[in-house]
């Protein structure tokens, strides 16, 4: 490959980057060229190796092979500081912020030594005015919304005047309206000559925003193209590698109310938590109710009280099959025929250091013959575990492997299967396909549809509007601890739900 020096050289070239984690090759000879002023999309589904690649570009990970050329010169990036001093800025998917520090402190800590706080406050204001990124430097981060937090990340990166700004799934925690604002800011940045590397798996955003796209699949580059010239179907099949089967339709027959919330109000259990305010919902057997909302609006608090991990302030606030159970623990509710699956796979829904059968014991000891009198029958746990592996097509190195050895998608199939295989009459599931590859997502969504068709009441909490619209029968929105009245999924527009997620009143016709 010829090296071009000086002004004609592309801003940044990744050449044959390889990164292995044990047996897994996360990046397999990935090459990518970034030019000044372009918005370049890095497309790929979960697990394709996008995050690994940008961590290499940010100096967080060292590549096993390959080289990085910066303005034509080969460079090694030993740490994020070196990347930043070259002019590489990073906006993380999971914010790298310090909750108990102020906005100004959060920004100051990433600046080179010698920047004075007073000067910094002024520059934060200036940048905010110029790009529409208003921030109060004195606020503590935990008081801010996800959108505001992202602004801190962007301002922090911009203050170092980057030549290349990397954004990792920046819209995943934003409402559609907040995302629009972000796009305006990014287009303005590109106009001023900054190169942007935009990581996403959302085709709609990419076709709207980006000039060029590099598509990763299984750690390899499968195509580089202009996304505006391709059809979304073409891009999707490049990303996934094969056609994803569409979800099957079902006959929708809502029956009796199985799960009810009656005027549920609860103070936050944790520091910086969200209080739930007067939440009332009825979920019928045979339906999927999708609860949309930006993360951090009370979803995890609601899940805890629904599952019984935390008792409701009043017994009558939660009813399963008409029976008040607000004071019952999670095992008692499971015995009533309910099943629950929290958002976080590792450390909540499953324990990475325990084997798959042990992870079956985790949530099924009360609703199976695994531990009848407090002594665990491991052979029965094993049998149930094997049944889940077969029925839900879980790819595992061995039936007794530790849960942590499974990929995100396979572990999610396993834990979803663990809850579904017992035929619960009520299922509460939080972000069922978060961070999961497309094939697993379809399998999981189909399983939820089939479960509802068999008469189960399914409450699906999700930040992903695509998912909500794909499988929910009715939609409600959670915002700042309050929940709107559910509306029929077929009669509501996406934009209206998006507006409600920011607290606006988008829908007049409540069902």
């Amino acid at each position, binding site marked *: 490959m010829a090296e071009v020096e000086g002004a004609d050289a592309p801003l940044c070239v990744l050449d044959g980057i390889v990164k292995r984690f044990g047996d897994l090759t996360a990046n397999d000879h990935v090459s990518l060229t970034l030019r000044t002023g372009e918005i370049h999309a890095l497309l790929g589904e979960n697990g394709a190796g996008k995050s690994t690649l940008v961590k290499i570009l*940010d*100096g*967080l*990970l*060292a590549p096993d092979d390959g080289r990085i050329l910066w303005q034509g010169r080969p460079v090694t990036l030993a*740490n*994020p*500081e*070196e*990347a*930043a001093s070259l002019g590489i800025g*990073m906006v*993380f998917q999971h*914010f*790298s*912020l*310090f*909750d*108990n*520090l102020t906005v100004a*402190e959060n920004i*100051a*800590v*990433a600046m080179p*030594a*010698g920047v004075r706080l007073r000067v910094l406050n002024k520059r934060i204001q200036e940048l905010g005015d110029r790009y529409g990124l208003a921030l109060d430097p004195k606020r503590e981060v935990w008081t801010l919304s996800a959108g505001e937090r992202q602004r801190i990340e962007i301002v922090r990166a911009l203050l170092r005047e980057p030549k290349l700004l990397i954004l990792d799934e920046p819209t995943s925690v934003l409402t559609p309206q907040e995302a629009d604002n972000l796009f305006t800011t990014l287009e303005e940045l590109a106009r001023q000559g900054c190169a942007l590397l935009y990581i996403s798996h959302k085709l709609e955003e990419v076709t709207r925003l980006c000039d060029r796209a590099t598509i990763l699949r299984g750690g390899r580059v499968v195509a580089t193209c202009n996304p505006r010239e391709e059809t979304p179907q073409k891009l999707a099949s490049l990303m996934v590698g094969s056609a994803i089967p569409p979800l099957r339709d079902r006959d929708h027959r809502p029956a009796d109310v199985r799960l009810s919330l009656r005027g549920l109000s609860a103070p936050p*259990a*944790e*520091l910086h938590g969200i209080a739930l305010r007067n939440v009332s919902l009825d979920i019928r057997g045979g339906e999927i109710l999708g609860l949309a909302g930006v993360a951090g609006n009370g979803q995890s608090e609601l899940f805890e009280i629904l599952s019984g991990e935390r008792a409701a302030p009043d017994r009558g606030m939660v009813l399963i099959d008409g029976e008040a159970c607000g004071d019952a623990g999670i095992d008692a509710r499971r015995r009533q025929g309910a099943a629950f699956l929290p958002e976080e796979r590792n450390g909540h829904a499953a324990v990475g250091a325990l084997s798959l059968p042990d992870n079956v014991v985790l949530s099924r000891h009360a609703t199976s013959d695994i531990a009848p009198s407090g002594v665990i029958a491991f052979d029965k746990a094993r049998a149930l575990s094997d049944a889940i592996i077969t029925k839900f097509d879980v790819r595992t190195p061995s039936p007794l492997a530790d849960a942590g050895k499974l990929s995100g998608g396979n572990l999610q199939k396993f834990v979803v299967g663990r809850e579904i295989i017992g035929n619960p009459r009520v299922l509460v599931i939080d972000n069922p396909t978060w961070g999961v590859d497309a094939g697993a997502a379809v399998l999981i969504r189909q399983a939820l549809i089939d479960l509802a068709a068999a008469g189960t009441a399914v409450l699906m909490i999700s930040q992903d509007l695509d998912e909500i619209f794909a499988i929910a029968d009715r939609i409600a929105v959670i915002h700042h601890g309050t929940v709107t009245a559910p509306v029929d999924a077929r009669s509501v527009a996406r934009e209206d739900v998006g507006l409600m997620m920011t607290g606006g009143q988008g829908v007049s016709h409540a069902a």
Partner: protein
Amino acid sequence: MIGFWESILLTVITAATPLLIAALGELIVEKSGVLNLGVEGMMAVGASTGFAVATLTDSSLTGVLAGIGAGMALSLVFALVTLGFAANQVAAGLALTILGLGLAGLIGAKFVGTSRIAIPPIHIPGLSELPLVGKLVFGQSPFFYLSVALAVGVAWFLKKTRAGLSLRSIGENHSSAHALGLKVLRTRLLAILFGGACAGLAGAYLSLVYTPFWSPGMTAGRGWIALALVVFASWLPLRVFLGAYLFGGATILQMHAQAASLGLPSQALSAFPYIATIIALVLISMRRVGATPAPGSLGTAFVPPR
């Protein structure tokens, strides 16, 4: 009468000074996200090494420096195991306590039963003869001035300096700090060494000023009380100052009660500081209700992903 109260206040200061120094050191360690439970061990080694070297060289200053050095050396072992090998910090802290108490005994063995003249207080001509405040404020041991300077310095460092901000960020969330390019392990190493230096200094104070001799077990749980002070103070340096003096006061109260023979068994009065610590911890936790200002990463190991 003035003489009596003055002497009580003087003894409060002598009792509070080692607690304050050790607790300020641990405060910095914990603010960086590391829990070093080995304060008691580092203090003991500081005390025995300080006394041994001071006796051998016949120089108190050399002894103090040796105490500091010994505390740092021991903390370096802790740093190697917890930072280098990412070992459990609680267990490593206990190992440090056991090792420190053992080493202190080995080092001090030849010096049991000997004593030196305590490092004298500073006298500032004119000022220290002032009525009331003269001796209290201007006639103290150099360690007292050092401890006050240390409290102010630590507070200033954490609140006002760039390095202090980095340290707080690292303690709050080490993964984020690493992603921003902050040197997590290097900062923690320096914090641990500072904690070791402070514990060693506090130990040297015990054997060179407080009771100018070495005896095994002379630290008597002060290292643990210093750890409790950090929690009691909600990780705020000036509250550590306040806490150390409250605690010093409680210790002296107990000694005077013992002298006044209130009819209580002496063991009950000796147990008072420990029970008071537990009660103080309960009271401070009750007021906080659920919220904790402890650094977010406190006690968790960090392995930089590469």
